[in-house]
């Protein structure tokens, strides 16, 4: 295996982990603020559908992105309303959003385009295009630098770079800004934040808006960049893998990057290994590799490889003390 092969596998892992990373960071904003969010899957799916439909109707990828972001935020606000204002069960609300998104996208997609829920394929000029980094072509033949720069780093969709930049940005926001301090505090000890005169509800709503925006990006990436149309249930459990990655990351941004890249790499291997014969094991069942993220998460949750401690106030609606 040459360095170019390695770079190509890593590049494919990077592409595959991008929606995971965006969704994982989305979950991070929500859960660090104390709102469990198993609705990531639905928020991504809804955004993917809105982006594909809008791009098709307006013939504009930019408007598609806008629609994806709006729907991502709207679904996040449904979750916010249910779990913050109505103090409903956050798990139930998340399940509702997932179910609603699966159903609505299929029904509307079929009613509008009559292709079994699929949206029409987007022509190349309406789809997001990959970006060649400067000098990528001329550096390609340089040893070491060439494969790493031209094959691994260059030639991705803008979403890949945005997702990568979102990691240091989130780390900065969370650890260095007042907003981040308050956000973490409402997830750990909302009463203290309340006492300090900051509205717990407002902080949590803001966190869910961030969550919705990131899910919107993830969904838009899937339907208007990675593929050229929306297909029913195209998120295929990525929202849940993102949650698993979030646990792996122990609710930290850099950890999220590591966990998502790991899961993306497993995915890239599973695709390459289909039908391939391995030394010692023989033909490995692809399912075994596909099952690894779920299995690892369970093992991690069991505390066998380090403890994952979620934010303390997660899942509990905050009730202001009666005056």
């Amino acid at each position, binding site marked *: 295996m040459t360095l170019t092969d390695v770079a190509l596998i890593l590049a494919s892992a990077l592409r595959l982990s991008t929606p995971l990373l965006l969704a994982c960071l989305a979950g991070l904003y929500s859960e660090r603020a104390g709102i*469990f969010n*198993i609705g990531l899957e639905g928020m991504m799916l809804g955004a993917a559908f809105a982006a594909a439909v809008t791009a098709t109707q307006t013939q504009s990828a930019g408007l598609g992105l806008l629609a994806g972001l709006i729907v991502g935020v709207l679904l996040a606000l*449904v979750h916010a*309303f*249910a*779990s913050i204002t*109505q*103090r*409903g*069960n956050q*798990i*139930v*609300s998340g*399940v*509702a*959003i*997932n*179910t*609603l*998104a*699966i*159903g*609505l996208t*299929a*029904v*509307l997609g*079929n*009613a509008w385009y*009559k292709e079994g*829920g699929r949206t029409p394929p987007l022509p190349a000029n309406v789809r997001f295009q990959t970006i060649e980094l400067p000098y990528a072509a001329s550096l390609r033949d340089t040893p070491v630098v060439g494969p790493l720069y031209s094959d691994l780093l260059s030639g991705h969709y803008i979403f890949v770079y945005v997702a990568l930049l979102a990691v240091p940005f989130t780390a900065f926001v969370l650890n260095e800004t007042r907003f981040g301090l308050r956000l973490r505090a409402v997830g750990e000890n909302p009463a203290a934040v309340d006492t300090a005169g900051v509205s717990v509800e407002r902080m949590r709503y803001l966190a869910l808006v961030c969550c919705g925006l990131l899910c919107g990006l993830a969904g838009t990436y899937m339907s208007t960049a990675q593929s050229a149309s929306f297909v*029913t249930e195209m998120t295929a*459990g990525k929202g*849940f893998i993102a*949650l*698993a990655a979030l*646990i792996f990351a122990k609710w930290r941004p850099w950890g999220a990057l590591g966990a998502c890249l790991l899961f993306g790499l497993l995915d890239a291997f599973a695709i390459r290994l289909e039908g391939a014969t391995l030394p010692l094991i023989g033909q490995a*069942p692809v*399912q*075994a590799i*596909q*099952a690894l993220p*779920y*299995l690892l*998460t*369970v093992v991690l*949750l*069991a*505390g066998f490889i380090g403890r994952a401690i*979620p934010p303390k106030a997660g899942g509990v609606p905050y009730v202001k003390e009666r005056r």
Partner: protein
Amino acid sequence: MNLPPRELPHWADVALVPVASVATAFIAAGLVVLAIGENPFECLKILLQGALGSGEGIGFTLYYATNFIFTGLAVAVAFHAGLFNIGGEGQAYVAGLGAALVALWFDSTLPAIILLPLGVIASALFGAAWALIPAWLQAKRDSHIVITTIMFNFLAATLMVYLLVGPLKPMGSMAPDTRSFAASAALPTMQGMLGAIGLKIPASPLNISFLLALVMAALVWLLIWRSRLGYEIRAFGFNPEATRYAGISATRITIVTLLISGGLAGLMSANEILGVQHRLSLGFVSGYGFVGIAVALMGRSHPVGVVLASILFGVLYQGGAELAFDKPAITRDMIVVIQGLVILFAGALERQFRAPLTAIFGRRPTRAETQAATS
């Protein structure tokens, strides 16, 4: 002295709140139908006609309801202990493996009278076994049951893909199915059983599992409200801390409750695999496990409520199939929309309905009642 807060009378709590939330869900679904450009009332008519307008339709409706009673009871039992078993889908899927293995191994050697109970028991045991690990992890290692059961749903799905495209697939077959079972592994149909006592009903997949489901609903009622274990389950769900001081083992309650829950979800496969499909195929659970969540929320975790909600979802499934046939613009995914709306309104936004209803029907408890409640 402060007056005690206004309370919703019990009858309104068990009847009005769910009815109001489900009605809202249906109105919202009607708006979706309207947005597609169809007439909601006409669609409702086709749906009801398809589900209840013929003996065959009723048979299909009750056959679907059977699945929902099992998965709904599974979610409901866990709810009573304050546990959210979101893994009914995976538990039912693996349970199908249990039922299928019994049928595949013994359908040529054992008579039906032994084989069938064995198959049904195997489905419950496999379902319970798939709930055991998340249960143990929740009880002993404090891993969140919701996340572990979600992971176990995916693990079940990948395991079944592996088995059905590999070891369990008959030689020379392309389809991801097991071979068909012999006739001795088929649960008696309702048509056959009623025919034996001289009652003629139209053919449908409805089978003896429906009766089993009703028996299970009754047993769940006895368990939760008439047994010591049920009392402990409810006490644990109400206040886990307090039960610890009362000497009730949290580990035991968590594991036992989730085993019962997984077993109930698993019985769904008796209906599907032994009752109707007579072979194990890829993805046969197809969301029934998730409908159980909506059913339990709608039925407020009470067996009677669960049976009623299951029949309503049975109507939606059977009527929805007819509707999709008559109106190509409306696919069966419409049921998933309604399911999502029910979970949203009856589950997450339930308080929304409680406040105005309390304003209308609420009354303050009398001093005697307050004293009785606190003494």
